[in-house]
């Protein structure tokens, strides 16, 4: 079934009786060529590109809950390619280009909205750093623009420019950045994968791995044993748990990140604004809610909910940046479990077990990576070679000293 304006009109005239479920609900088969563990954005995108671009078949995605129950349904939906380092920026720009065509690609309304992102500048040193970042972005084919205080005031007049501690002196602007409907991204990829024969199996938790002679043979699941030619793991916050089933310890800690949404308001915030110095960022959803967040709570957690100190910290950041936010009522807050890698950058690589591949360590920035991560992981699974934009994301980079230290972040909270 293809979606189109014509289709919407036709269904309206026929009483909306022609819509069908977006994907099948198949029983797991005893064997697949490719088993993807984790039905989040990355797992679904991987399956989609494996089937579509790399023309593979006999593919399954195993998801322990329902589609979208993990971080893909919990993030604050920001997409951007404003990275600095050569190992990162080409990858995120590749992702940005895939976003720009995603709706045509999947024939699904993922509400990709290029409303721009502004990173605020408070000091001369920060302006120098952002100028360098902007130039690195331009080198990689992305767009970047340094905003003067006056240009900024015109775009976002409501900020507290004369804050005594963090006066606002300008911003780094990426016009092509923006937001997308996070669930819509998962659903679009799921539907596209399903249409190409991928079995999406929900309520199917991987509980063990069968490995013999250094080769993976298949996975034990809550719905029985499933044999596999290759197994690709993309389980975000559960990375350490799942890879420990193959006897591996990862350079990853799981931490909780919270996010918040206000009641719906009339349009007031034009794009995404980040206030790094105050641990606060904000955008406005199409429904009108102010969507905002800040830092991770800062201790190991698998609880999918955070604590009050970070709630206070984020709201204080919001009040410092844009005092008008104090008039809005907070509607909801929630948390998701981040796979915090030790250098703050992701991993897309083979492992020491033959046929077992790992995709993780996305920290709090994996939503924007969803298309490129799926594409690069599918490339690796299909060809056994890394995609050209993902060659730095090696699992052994920590042992070899090739860290991708984008901002001096990672799991260690005292570096934040």
């Amino acid at each position, binding site marked *: 079934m293809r979606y189109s304006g014509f289709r919407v009109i036709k269904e309206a005239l026929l009483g909306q009786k022609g819509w069908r479920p977006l994907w099948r609900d198949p029983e797991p088969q005893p064997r697949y060529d490719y088993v993807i563990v984790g039905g989040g954005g990355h797992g679904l995108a991987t399956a989609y590109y494996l089937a579509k671009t790399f023309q593979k078949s006999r593919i399954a995605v195993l998801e322990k809950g329902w589609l979208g129950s993990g971080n893909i349904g919990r993030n604050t939906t920001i997409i951007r390619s404003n990275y600095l380092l050569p190992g990162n920026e080409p990858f995120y720009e590749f992702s940005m280009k895939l976003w720009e065509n995603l709706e045509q690609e999947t024939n699904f309304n993922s509400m990709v909205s290029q409303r721009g992102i502004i990173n605020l500048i408070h000091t001369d040193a920060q302006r120098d750093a952002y100028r360098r970042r902007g130039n690195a972005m331009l080198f990689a084919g992305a767009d970047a623009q340094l905003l003067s205080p006056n240009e900024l005031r015109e775009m976002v007049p409501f900020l507290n420019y004369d804050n005594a501690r963090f006066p606002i002196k300008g911003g780094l602007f990426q016009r092509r950045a923006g937001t997308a409907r996070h669930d819509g991204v998962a659903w679009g990829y799921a539907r596209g994968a399903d249409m190409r024969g991928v079995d999406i199996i929900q309520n199917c938790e991987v509980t063990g791995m069968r490995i013999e002679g250094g080769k993976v043979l298949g996975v034990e699941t809550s719905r029985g044993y499933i044999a596999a030619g290759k197994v690709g793991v993309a389980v975000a916050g559960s990375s350490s748990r799942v890879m420990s089933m193959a006897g591996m310890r990862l350079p990853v*800690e799981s931490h909780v990140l919270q996010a918040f949404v206000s009641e719906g308001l009339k349009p007031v915030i034009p794009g995404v604004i980040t206030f790094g110095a105050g641990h606060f960022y904000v955008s406005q959803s199409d429904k009108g809610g102010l969507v905002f967040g800040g830092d991770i709570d800062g201790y190991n957690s698998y609880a999918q909910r955070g604590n009050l100190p970070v709630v206070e910290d984020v709201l204080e950041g919001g009040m410092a940046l844009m005092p008008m936010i104090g008039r809005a009522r907070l509607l909801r807050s929630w948390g998701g479990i981040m796979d915090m890698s030790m250098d703050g950058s992701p991993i897309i690589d083979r492992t020491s077990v033959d046929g077992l591949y790992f995709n993780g360590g996305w920290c709090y920035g994996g939503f924007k990576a969803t298309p490129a991560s799926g594409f690069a992981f599918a490339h690796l699974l299909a060809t056994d070679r890394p995609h050209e934009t993902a060659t730095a994301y090696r699992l052994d980079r920590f042992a070899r000293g090739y860290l991708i230290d984008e901002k001096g972040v990672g799991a260690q909270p005292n570096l934040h």
Partner: protein
Amino acid sequence: MLIPHPLLGLRDAQEFTYLGDASLLNRPDASSPDAAVAFFDYVYLRDNPAGVHRELWFHEQGDRSWLIVTRNTLTHEILNAELACESAVKSEVLA
């Protein structure tokens, strides 16, 4: 979260700075032949368990002692807290 400090009683976790897995107390021997491998393991790899976790918290805005807190990462329930120096002495005696 409230941490039962062995000397000061229940303290707000906000007074503390978190460092991570308590196994960080066991720094490898830099002069041993396998030091490079041992330090890679020590610096980067983590068990990262879902469930009971022994971890280091520094009472930065309190008495500046290091605690080993035993906490359930699935529920945030705090099961125990002891002074890291005492625990380190204990393990040396046992070793």
